[in-house]
């Protein structure tokens, strides 16, 4: 599957698993991911036949439904060298939970194991596999970074995004208090228990805003939509963006939950 590039170097073929939320709500994150992966020397494909990783069903206890959705991912990404997703949650689902989901399914257990082994979250792929040099990126402003739970605790993503942000010229990173605490999104949790989720996201935006940063970045659109939606509900000026947008220098479009001209 490795393809030779113009320089003669072997380029790995990365299948971008765009994730259902990015696909529907924020396509610009998908294009930022493509730009970063290509800059990191990869050939990028977006395999047809992808919808969602199946996590909503899996975490609702609907194993059969989760498997039906997950099989579309097994099918679509069988041929690529890597599956890369701009989400720690979806990457964690595939890498960490697919083997468990298919453990008692003789037809697909091996395929699930194989896919899990080549699945990466975008930022950790760039830092850990591609050792990416980000020189030239620029973002003028102070940002804070929210560690999404799945990426942080299932995949151990913590230093990587900070290292890449440190290479962005003009960017100042200021850390928030309680940065390892959940924002209250939790997939279907946020609509099943809105009162509790609401308190959690209120506490989170309070801590984020206290940094004085103009923008909050994270690697997961679910958390970002939750945080951006709450920031807007509370009338706070802080903006929310996916970290890929900043790393790729694609921050001309309005922030999450903002329209052109809206503050």
């Amino acid at each position, binding site marked *: 599957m490795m393809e030779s590039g113009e320089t003669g170097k072997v380029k790995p073929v990365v299948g971008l698993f765009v994730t259902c939320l990015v696909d529907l709500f924020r396509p610009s994150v998908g294009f930022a991911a493509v730009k970063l992966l290509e800059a990191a020397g990869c050939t990028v494909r977006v395999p047809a*036949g992808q919808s969602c990783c199946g996590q909503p069903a899996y975490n609702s206890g609907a194993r059969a439904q989760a498997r039906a959705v997950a099989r*579309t991912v097994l099918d679509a990404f069988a041929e690529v060298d890597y599956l890369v997703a701009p989400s720690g949650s979806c990457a964690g689902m595939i890498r960490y939970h697919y083997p468990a989901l298919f453990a008692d399914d003789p037809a697909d257990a091996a395929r699930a194991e194989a896919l899990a082994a080549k699945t990466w979250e975008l930022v950790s792929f760039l830092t850990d596999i591609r050792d990416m040099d980000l020189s030239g990126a620029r973002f003028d402003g102070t940002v804070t970074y929210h560690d999404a739970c799945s990426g942080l605790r299932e995949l151990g993503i913590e230093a990587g995004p900070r290292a890449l942000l440190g290479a962005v010229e003009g960017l100042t990173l200021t850390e928030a208090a309680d940065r390892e605490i959940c924002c209250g999104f939790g997939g279907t949790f*946020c609509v099943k228990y809105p009162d509790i989720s609401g308190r959690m996201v209120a506490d989170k935006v309070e801590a984020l805003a206290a940094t004085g940063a103009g923008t909050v970045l994270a690697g997961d659109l679910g958390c970002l939509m939750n945080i951006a939606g709450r920031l807007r509900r509370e009338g706070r000026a802080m903006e929310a963006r996916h970290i890929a947008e900043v790393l790729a220098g694609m921050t001309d479009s309005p922030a999450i939950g*903002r329209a052109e001209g809206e503050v």
Partner: protein
Amino acid sequence: MEITSPTFKANAREALDDTTLQKALGFVKVGFVDRRAKAAARLPEFEALRDQAKAIKDHTLANLDLYLERFEEKVTAAGGTVHWCRDGAEARTTILDICRRLEARTVTKGKSMIAEEIALNDFLEEQGIEPVETDLGEYIIQLRHEPPSHIIAPAVHLVKEQVSDAFRAAHTHLPADRNLDEAPTLLAEARTILRRKFLAADVGITGANFLIAETGSTVIVTNEGNGDLTQTLPRAHIVLASLEKVVPTLEDASTILRVLARSATGQEFSVYTTFSTGPRRAEDLDGPEEFHVVLLDNGRSAMLGTEFQDMLRCIRCGACLNHCPVYGAVGGHAYGWVYPGPMGAVLTPSLVGIDKTGHLPNASSFCGRCEAVCPMRIPLPKMMRHWREREFERHMTPAAARTALGFWAWVAARPRLYGVMANLGARALRIWARGRGALVRVPLAGGWTAERDLPVPEGQSFQAQWTRRGGAR
């Protein structure tokens, strides 16, 4: 105790609106968490000890019958008695029989979650026996006639003023104008009251953090020394313990003790770690004449060999509660039974059934912080998910959610159809938004928009745009 888990959502709402409770919960979220982190950081082998502790319990659970029988042999050899009790009723009757035989009128108690589990205090009171809680936190909530809200800090939901009020209401023989504004004066008053009770007690009941098979010893850890007075002064000491508390050796108990206090309170060791082996021997200067171990199953043996067996490794340190953002938001009482937080979300359905406790394993964002700090490496989110699976299989999931999920999964398993529908949905939201970046209200998304705006899709879906641009598939 009466179970209020079925009304978890209403309990949670009430807790979120209770400003005093919210103030009290502040300590859990900051104090316990900081102290544990510092204690773990100070011990280079902490992570290795967690692995060892887990391995000890896994081995014990795989040979539970062997170690329990050995434990009984050793207790008997030391002159004590083990009472095997299948459920709470058997345990209560066993304890009552001992108390009746000794004509006990007052029973002092060390802190025991098992006693809460079998509602022992209410039962003893009904039988005309006065139970006196001697752990300060337990004493406070006994005065207030409420259950504990935390497994190691039972009164953590209270602020100092509420404790002062409870003392003034209960200790009416003391001067009304006494100073109860500070912790030391509160403590002194409790100590004075309890000292008399310690001396009057006919029977002392404690829990156990460990039962040691090789010696027949029971172990408690406390910070107040109340457990020692509870078990040493009365004529009989009754240890109330569930059967998964057993470990093979003293060495094993020591290993687990090294992670217990660090995980619980951030102490290196609790102030008191007390080992009890049998009743007073001829040469002993003090100690009880009788030593009983009430060994309770109450549903635990049924967890062996199931996907919930790992839960039996739990050593009740409370770290999962302290690090849980849901527990931190609503406190322990909202969970509606004895065991709150992540460990309760797994254990409570196992002990009292999923029918009444269906909310508990669902009320988690699966943030994973509980598993990250659990000294016994119990995969709590995974087991909560197993409960959700059982609920889904049994059609306990609310019908609307089930239908929506089924429809969504059916479409998502057909990516071409999914792509068409996603784009229709995106377009509908954009039309509805009329140029705004986010929506305050959206039909069928009330759960989302109750607490935050819904960002509107930027435009066509990524995949549609990718195809249109001729991107590689």
